[in-house]
C-alpha cells in the first residue's frame, strides 16, 4: 500500500495522469460543445477511433503535425456526416451516433487490414510517428523550485498543452462571445433563438463539426503519444467515458477538465497498478475506469436531483 501512495504522489505519476487525461479531456470538450448546443454526440468513441487510425496512417507519410491535422479533419468530417443525417435527413441523433460507432469499429479494422496488407490487429508494421513532447528542462535552472517544476511540467505532449489551452478557449467562447451565447441558447430552448433569427440547425451542425474535430485530436494523441501505433478498438470506451465526464462536469468547461482529470487519474492508476500488485487480477484493474464512471454518474445524478428539489422544480 505504501508503494502505491508513494507512486501516486510522484512526479512520474502526475505525468502519467496528464498523458491519460489528454485524450479524455479533448473528447470531453467535444462532447460538451455538442451537448450544450442540444446535439448529444454519442459518436465520440467512433470519431476518436477513426481519428486514431487516420493519424497513424497519415503519420507514415507526413510529419506529425499533418497527421494530427488529419485526425482532426477526420473527426470533423464525421461530425458533418452526423449533422447531415440528423438535421437534413431528420434521423434520430443517437441512432446516427451509434451508426458512426459501428462504422468506426468495423471500418478501422477493414482499413487497417488494407493499409498493412492483411494485419487486422495492430499497425505494428507501419512506421508511424509520435507527437513530440515539450521539453522544458531549462526550468531546472530556476533556483529552489526549478527541478520540481521541471519534473512536473516537462515531457508532456504538445497536445496536452493544447488541450489545457482549449479548456480556456472553450470557456471564453461559450461565456464571453456572442456565438457562445447563441450556442447555449440553441441548446437551452431552441424555439427562442429560432424566433430571433438564429439558424438553429446551422449552430448545431457547426458544434458537431467542432465536437468531432476535438475528438479527432484526442484520437491523434491516443495513437501518437499514449501509444504509438493503432490497435483494434484502442479507444476502449474512452469516448463513452467522455460522455459521462460531460455530465459529471456539470456541462461546464472547467467541470469537464476536473471530470476528465478524475477519470484520467483512475486510468493512470490502472496503468501503474499491475506493476505494484501482482495479486490483483488485471481484469479487475481494467474495470476501474468503468466502475468509477458509473459511480460518478450516479453520485452526480443524485446531487443534481437534490439541487432541482431544493429549487422546487421537482
Amino acid at each position, binding site marked *: 500500500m505504501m508503494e502505491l501512495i508513494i507512486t501516486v504522489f510522484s512526479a512520474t505519476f502526475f505525468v502519467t495522469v496528464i498523458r491519460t487525461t489528454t485524450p479524455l479531456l479533448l473528447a470531453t470538450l467535444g462532447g460538451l460543445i455538442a451537448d450544450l448546443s442540444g446535439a448529444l454526440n454519442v459518436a465520440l468513441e467512433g470519431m476518436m477511433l477513426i481519428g486514431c487510425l487516420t493519424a497513424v496512417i497519415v503519420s507514415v507519410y507526413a510529419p506529425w503535425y499533418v497527421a494530427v491535422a488529419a485526425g482532426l479533419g477526420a473527426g470533423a468530417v464525421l461530425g458533418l456526416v452526423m449533422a447531415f443525417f440528423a438535421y437534413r435527413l431528420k434521423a434520430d441523433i443517437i441512432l446516427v451516433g451509434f*451508426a*458512426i460507432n459501428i462504422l468506426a*469499429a468495423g*471500418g478501422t479494422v477493414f482499413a487497417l487490414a488494407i493499409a498493412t496488407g492483411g494485419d487486422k490487429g495492430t499497425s505494428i508494421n507501419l512506421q508511424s510517428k509520435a507527437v513530440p513532447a515539450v521539453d522544458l528542462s531549462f526550468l531546472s535552472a530556476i533556483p529552489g523550485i526549478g527541478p520540481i517544476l521541471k519534473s512536473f511540467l516537462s515531457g508532456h505532449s504538445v497536445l496536452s498543452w493544447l488541450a489545457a489551452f482549449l479548456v480556456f478557449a472553450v470557456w471564453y467562447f461559450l461565456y464571453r462571445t456572442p456565438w457562445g451565447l447563441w450556442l447555449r441558447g440553441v441548446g437551452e430552448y431552441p424555439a427562442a433563438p429560432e424566433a430571433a433569427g438564429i439558424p438553429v440547425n446551422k449552430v448545431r451542425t457547426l458544434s458537431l463539426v467542432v465536437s468531432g474535430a476535438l475528438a479527432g485530436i484526442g484520437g491523434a494523441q491516443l495513437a501518437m503519444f499514449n501509444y504509438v501505433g493503432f490497435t483494434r478498438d484502442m479507444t476502449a470506451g474512452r469516448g463513452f467515458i467522455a460522455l459521462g465526464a460531460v455530465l459529471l462536469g456539470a456541462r461546464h468547461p472547467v467541470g469537464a477538465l476536473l471530470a476528465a482529470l478524475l477519470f484520467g487519474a483512475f486510468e493512470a492508476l490502472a496503468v501503474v497498478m499491475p506493476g505494484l500488485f501482482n495479486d490483483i487480477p488485471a481484469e479487475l484493474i481494467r474495470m476501474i475506469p*468503468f*466502475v468509477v464512471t458509473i459511480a460518478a454518474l*450516479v453520485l452526480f*445524478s*443524485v446531487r443534481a436531483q437534490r439541487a432541482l428539489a431544493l429549487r422546487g422544480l421537482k
Partner: protein
Amino acid sequence: MSNIPAVDRRSRWKTIRREVGRAVGALVIALVVTFIVVLLTSKAPIDAITQLLTAPASKPRTIGLWLDDVAKLTVTGLAFSLVFQARQFAMGVQGQVYIGALAASYVALSPLGASWAGIPLGIAAAMLAGAIYGFLPGIAKAKLGANEIVSSLMLNYIAVELCNFLVRVSLPKPQPGVLTTNDFPDSAVFPQLIKFDGLNVTRLDLGLVFALVAVFVVWFALYRTSWGLKLRLVGHNARFAEYSGIKATFIMVSAMTASGALGGLLGSMFVQGQGYGKLTVLFEGGLAFEGILVAIVARSRPLAVPIVALFYGYLRQGAQLMNIRTDVPAEVIGVVTAIIILLVSSSFSLNFVTRLFKRSPSPSVAPAAAGGAAK
C-alpha cells in the same frame, strides 16, 4: 374490431410497402458502396462479391450457420426493439449476453448441468442474470436520473472484463492458461434440430425455437397486454402517459429489465448452443450491437424482427465466408451496417437525391430533441 377494417388494412399494407421499399433501397445503396470498396481494395473483386452474395446458401453447413446467426440476431433485435419502443436508449445487450452466458455456464458446469435440468435451469439462470443486469441502468435512471446510455455502455465493458476474469480464475478449465472452460455435458447443450445421417453438418439447434418463441412472446406482450400498451404510450409521449396515470418510470424500468432477460437468453443461446457448448472469452464477436440495425430496420416491430434478421444474417454470414475464402476482411460488413442504419433511421426515400440539395424552407426544431440526456 375496427369499424373500417378495409381502410385499416389498406393503410397497413401501404405502411408495410413503404417500409420494405425503404429497407430495400437502403440495402441496395449499402451494397453498391460495398461493391465499390471491394472493387478498389481487392485483388479478386468478382470472386469476393460472389462469395458475399452466394456463399451462405451454398451448402447445408453454411445454411445452418446462417440460420443460427438469424436466431441470435432475432433475439438481440427483440431486446433492442423493447427498449426502443419505450424510447430508452439502453445499449446494454452486450453486457447482458456476457452476464447471461456466465450464469448459464455456472449452471451447466455444476452437477445440475449433467442432469435433465441443465438446459431449462441454464436458460432460467441466464435470463435472470440478464434481467438483473438490464434492471441496473433502468433503476439508476428512474431513481437517480443517471443517463442510461452511459451507464449501460459502462456495464458492457465491466461484463466483458468480468467474463474474462471468471473464465481465467473460477470456472473449470481443461488445462491452465487456456481462455475457455470445459465442454458442457451433453445434457446442458441444446440438441440439434436436424441431423443428417452420419454427417454432423449443421449448427442449427434448439436456440432457433427459443428465438421464435421470444418473437411471439414479445409481440404478445407489446400488442396484446395493457403493459405493452402503456409501454408504447410512454415511448410515444412520456409526459402524456404520465398525465393519464401511467407510471412512466415503472414502465421504463420494466422494459429495460425484460430486454435484459432477452439479452441473458441470447447469452445462454451462445454458450449452450451447438456453436460453442462451452464458455470462451469474447465469444460474442460484436453480434449483440447488430441488434440495433435489426430493430431499426424492423421499426421495433417484433414480428418484423426475424424477417430483417433473416436478410441481415445472410449478409453477415456472407461476409464471414468472404473473409475466409478471399482477401476482403469480414469487417467490411460494419460499413454496410452503418449505412443501412443511417439511411433507414433518417427520412430518406428513393427520390431523396432531388430533395437533398433543395433548401428546406423552415428548419423545424424539435424542442429539446436530443438534450434530454442531461436531465
